[in-house]
Each structure stands twice: as C-alpha cells, then as structure tokens.
C-alpha cells in the first residue's frame, strides 16, 4: 500500500494555504504533520481523505487518484477528525456498531474489545451525551480497532486525553505501524515511536 501526494496545492476561501506539496507514505511509516494554527493541517487531512478538493495536484492510492478508487481507498482508511462523529443518542457500543457496518469490521475484535483497547470497557452502554469530551474521543478512537483499515488519519488525537490515555494511544499507534500499518497524524505532541519510520512535515513555513 502506498499513499502518494503530487504537487498538491490547497486553498481555503481565497487564500492559498500551501502549494507544490509532494510526499509518499508506505507500509509501516508514520507521517507527523506540524504547523501553526491556521496553516492548513486539518484541511490537508481532509484533502488526503477525499473530503476536501485540492485546487491543484492529486492524491494517489497505490498509484491511482483516490476519487477514482474510492471503494478501495475508503475500505483501508480510518479517519478520526476534529468532529469525531460520536452520536449522543447512541451508546458507545451502538456507535461502534454503525462504524463497523459502514466499513470493514475487524475480524478478531468486536465493539467491546475495541472499547477495551482504549480503557472504555466499562462504558459500553453509556450514551454518547453522558460521556466527557475525553471519553467521547476515546470512543471515536476505538473505531480504529472496530474497523480494520491500513491507513489511520488522525487529527489532533491527543487533545482532551489524559496522560495515561495519551501513552496508551502512542503504544497503539506504535503497534499498528509495527504491524505494517500507516499513520498520518497532526500533533505537536512528541511521540515516542522507536524503530518506526517517522516522516515529518511542517506546514506554513
């Protein structure tokens, strides 16, 4: 699997955020994106997911433009954005059930074990609206395990998490990458990812 970006230019409103962006990401690699507020980190992630449209250039999945191979690409894509889509009127488990049905359900993990991975096992039947912001984010992150996908795209995943969960998430990212997965993450957090290929990209220089 290979995600490749060629000569990408992205605008927001009338303002050019960046242009001429090239990079590629292969199995077992992490891309850490940094940049000051408003430098276009989230916009870039959305373009990488096919949610946003670049003004120039293209995003390729295994050599083909992502909007041509949406089905193949999305099956291997797990996106946890800033608005993470945990419904307040559904329980944690119901939320994950919907995610599993929409994508490729993980063969060895169900919703419950996925919640366990983020230490949310005791909140299976709690409604989304009764959870704290950090807990909701953990439910959203549990999607990474409920759904099996090669590429994780995470927008500021460490915000609203306590120190313990941050360490857990780091370990989980490490495990995913060691198993051949790919991760794209925006964060200012220094991640301790030993023996992983970590690429860095700084926007808005």
């Amino acid at each position: 699997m290979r995600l490749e970006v060629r000569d990408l230019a992205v605008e927001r409103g009338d303002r050019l955020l960046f242009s001429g962006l090239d990079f590629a990401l292969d199995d077992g690699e992490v891309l850490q994106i940094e940049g000051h507020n408003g430098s276009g980190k989230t916009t870039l992630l959305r373009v990488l997911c096919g949610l946003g449209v670049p003004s120039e250039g293209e995003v390729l999945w295994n050599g083909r433009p992502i909007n041509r191979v949406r089905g193949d690409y999305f099956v291997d894509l797990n996106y946890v954005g800033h608005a993470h889509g945990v419904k307040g009127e559904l329980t944690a488990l119901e939320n994950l059930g919907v995610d599993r049905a929409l994508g490729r359900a993980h063969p060895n993990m169900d919703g419950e074990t996925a919640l366990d991975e983020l230490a949310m096992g005791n909140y299976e039947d709690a409604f989304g609206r009764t959870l704290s912001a950090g807990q909701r984010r953990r439910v959203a992150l549990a999607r990474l395990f409920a759904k099996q996908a090669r590429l994780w795209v995470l927008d500021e995943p460490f915000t609203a998490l306590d120190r313990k969960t941050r360490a857990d998430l780091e370990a989980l990212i490490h495990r995913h990458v060691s198993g051949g997965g790919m991760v794209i993450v925006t964060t200012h957090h220094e991640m301790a990812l030993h023996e992983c290929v970590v690429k860095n990209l700084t926007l808005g220089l």
Partner: protein
Amino acid sequence: MNSTVAANEPRLAQAFVTLLRRDLLLAFRRPAEIANPLLFFVIVVTLFPLGIGPEPNTLQTIAPGVIWVAALLASMLSLDGMFRTDFDDGALEQILLSPHPLSVLVLAKVIAHWMISGLPLILLSPLLGLFMNLPAESIVALVLTLLLGTPVLSLIGSIGTALTVGLRKGGVLLSLLVLPLYIPVLIFAASAVEVAGVGFSIAAQLSFLGALLALALTLAPVATAASLRISVS
C-alpha cells in the same frame, strides 16, 4: 483462509440496514423531532376553517389544496434534520468515507426520514379529511396520494437539504430551492383528491405520481450524494 476474508468484507446490505436502523433509533430517542412537524401539519390545516369560516362546501372545495400544501410545509420542516446533526458532529464524514456507494447509503437515510415524517402524516390525514368535510372517496384518494407523494417529497427534499447543510441559515434557503420542485406532486395529488370527491377515476393522477416516484427514486439519491460531497468540502 478465504472464508475469513469474505466474512469481514464490507457488505452493502448490512450497511444499508444498519444506517436505516440507526436513523430510526436516533429519531425515537428524540421524539420531539417526529412530533413537531406533525403538530404543525394539524395546526396549519385547522387554521383554515377558522380563517375562512366553517361552511362545509367551501371547506370541501379548498381541502385538497390546503391539506397537501400543509403536508409540503410539514415535510419542509422535518427535512432540515436529515443531515444537519450528522454534519455538525462529524458523523456525516464517516458515512462519506464508507467504501459503499454513497447514493445507496443516502437512500437508507431518506427512507428512514420518510418513515419518521411521511408515514405518520399519512396515518393522520384521514382525521384532517374529516375536519375539512371531505367525502369518503376523497379521503381514500388523499391517503393514496400521500402514500405515493410523500416519498417523492423526501427524495427531492434530500437534494436541497444536502446542498444547504453546510450553511448556517440553510432553512429559508432550503424552502426556496425545494418548494418549486414540489409543484408537480402538489398538482397531481390535489387534483386526485378533488376529482375523487365527484366520483371520477383517479388512475391518471396516481400513475403520474407513481412515475414521479420512480424518477425521484433513481435520480435523487445520486444528486444528493454529489451534493453532500460538495457540502463537506
């Protein structure tokens, strides 16, 4: 080996049913959103006898148009909820990132919307027919036209909702976009109710409504899917 691979491959039917169930579940856990448009429907129709006078013949003449116009407005009210909350909390992005064809997933949401907003309207309509002094034949025609017409309203409405979901003041704009497109449904349906009252056949009107439904069913989900991708970008 092969069987395990096949077991967790994403299945469209499962995604469709899950999404439909999810939307129904969400609606039942927020029952006000079902009840309010219905209440609106009943109150608007009740206003007409009060405004025009309770003369039975007058009521009977205006009833088909009044009930149908009220149904259009009630459906407008409920439309905004179709994608709005999902857009706000990010769940819509997850649906857009599903490997399944978006138009089919959209159809599941539209069907759920119709079951929440259209179906109760149909069940209530005989009562309003009685209020407006409609003869029994017209009430039957009213139910039949609503049965064929309200799904068209949900389908066409979904396009407008998808186009305006990203805008803060989408509500008024939505009615401007969608109401003109509702006109054919209004014309055929109201005419069927009226004509049935004087004992004519309504086969022609019903077949037009059926044709509109078939057309909307095939084209609207595609347009809605395209509009959603535009609105999130």
